[in-house]
């Protein structure tokens, strides 16, 4: 349902992604590992068509449709949703306003806000004075209200305490199970693997995909030997 073919992306005149090939089936969860600055977030922003991420080569396909030229909101309408790693603070714009735009009704907002302990945040300006964990919960809250078919999650658990990781993980897993949605998840800590059934993982280094395999196996290997070993891991090389 989602495919990236031979993608090359430039930012400020510099190649940040090269020769990227990814495919995600319906209901499949793909984990993306990679060191800081390897291009993971750039990949998510390119998928959504953010300005400054220029596709020099290749295609991004969603349900058979080429996304390359579509504005962000059109891609979102097709069913792609993102959970940002560092969402901006927007003065005067309240979480509730966005929720009301995304949700069918107030009940839906209420229920999900309750599950994610965000009821008191609804009337607050988005991300202003939110703690790291609150920001992540608010991001998950918004993306789930969007009801996407493909979720792009950029480090959903970073900065979140254990208790809230478990709440978020369960809510996310429930959504994926109930809707059979797909997901592309960036993780550093690997905690999210305890909550979602991830089928495969890719390792992105220097803007290229170096290897793919079982998420748990790859995560354990990175934890043990770091990313340098990944580069040497010839047998799994894509």
């Amino acid at each position: 349902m989602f495919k990236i073919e031979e993608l090359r992306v430039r930012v400020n005149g510099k190649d940040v992604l090269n020769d990227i090939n990814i495919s995600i089936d319906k209901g499949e969860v793909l984990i993306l590992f990679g060191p800081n600055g390897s291009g993971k977030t750039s990949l998510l922003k390119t998928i959504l068509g953010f300005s400054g991420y220029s596709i020099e080569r290749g295609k991004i396909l969603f349900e058979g449709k080429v996304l390359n030229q579509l504005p962000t909101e059109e891609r979102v309408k097709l069913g792609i949703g993102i959970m940002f790693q560092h969402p901006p603070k927007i003065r005067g714009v309240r979480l509730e306003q966005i929720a009301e735009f995304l949700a069918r009704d107030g009940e839906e907002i209420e229920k999900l806000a309750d599950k994610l302990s965000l009821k008191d945040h609804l009337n607050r300006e988005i991300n202003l004075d939110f703690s790291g964990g609150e920001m992540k919960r608010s991001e998950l809250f918004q993306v789930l209200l969007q009801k996407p078919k493909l979720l792009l999650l950029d480090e959903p658990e970073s900065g979140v305490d254990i208790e809230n990781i478990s709440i978020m993980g369960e809510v996310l897993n429930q959504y994926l199970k109930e809707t059979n949605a797909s997901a592309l998840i960036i993780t550093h800590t690997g905690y999210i693997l305890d909550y979602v059934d991830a089928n495969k993982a890719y390792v992105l280094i220097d803007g290229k995909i170096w290897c793919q395999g079982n998420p748990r196996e790859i995560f354990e290997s990175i934890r043990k030997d770091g990313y340098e070993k990944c580069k040497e891991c010839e047998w799994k090389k894509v």
Partner: protein
Amino acid sequence: MEKGLTNFGKEDLEKISSAGIDISEKTRSASFLQEDGEVILTKSLLKGVEILNREEALNRYPEVRKYYGKAFKTLDRDFPKDTEKGYFIRVKKGTVVQLPVQACLFLKKKRFEQKVHNIIIVEEGAKAYLITGCASSKSAEESFHLGVSEFFVHKGGYLNFTMIHSWRKDISVKPVSIALVEEGATFVSNYICLHAVKEVSMYPTAVLLGKNARASFNSLILSHFGSFQDIGSRVVFREGYTSAEMISRAVSVGGRIIARGHLKSEAKNVKAHLECRGLIISQEGTIHAIPELETDYRDVELSHEAAIGKISREEIEYLCARGFPREQAQAIIIRGFMDVEILALPEVLKNEIKQLEEKTLRSGF
């Protein structure tokens, strides 16, 4: 039949409503309306609130005469004497008015020069909300409005004054106002200008005369192409243990804005903060923020912060990633920037002004 707010044509009524006036008068405790040079309506539903043509009030009440020009004398300033009419509002001692008092100054004739002098007295321990809507008809081409206002908030009193401008692009406006705020009293001034205007020049001043007096100036300004708005607010602290706050949000979609603010402490133990934020949407727009802090004393706490910038691309793209089209995302950010919550308003007025703002921003620039 008495002429009143309902005697206007549809277009004029819409314009008057856009300046925050409740045509039905149902949510107001008293109403005043002046069209060009003629006072059309003075009506109070409450015993403790008097609302009159200012000239009539000066003739009727000898004790009111001493108020005329008093605020200007306090600051040793001259004021325009060629004014006519305007409103007189007096909230009697201890009266607490929940529903706002409304006053509308309307321009109808072409090239008319409306010059009014208003006097507002809030007596000891009284509390009131006043909303003044200044608007113009389609026919009022190249007209001029001068509004001199003197506010007197006596001991322990509270006045929340909201002024909404809804002019047209060829009208020049000059409000000149001073508020004298006594011990334990509070003066809140909210100014909202979302429509085009040729020129507005104003620098309203509050003078805090007694301990625990407080002033707050808040403004939301949207400046359209061809408009020039030189808008400031000043607080003079004549007594210690007084405080003030100024918050302004200015958005230029093509117009020129000068956003001034001046905190002048003439006493010790004064606390005040000034915050000015500007957003420039169009290449043609300019904003010049001039915050000033002044004192001869050490024991004061005066601070300011000013910031001017464009809409952040990151914020727009964030909202686009939630499915908002680009233009709508920009409008949401502007509306958020011009947050009605910064105005110290009762819920009823807050909701009304939110709706006015929504309507204006939705109709585009």
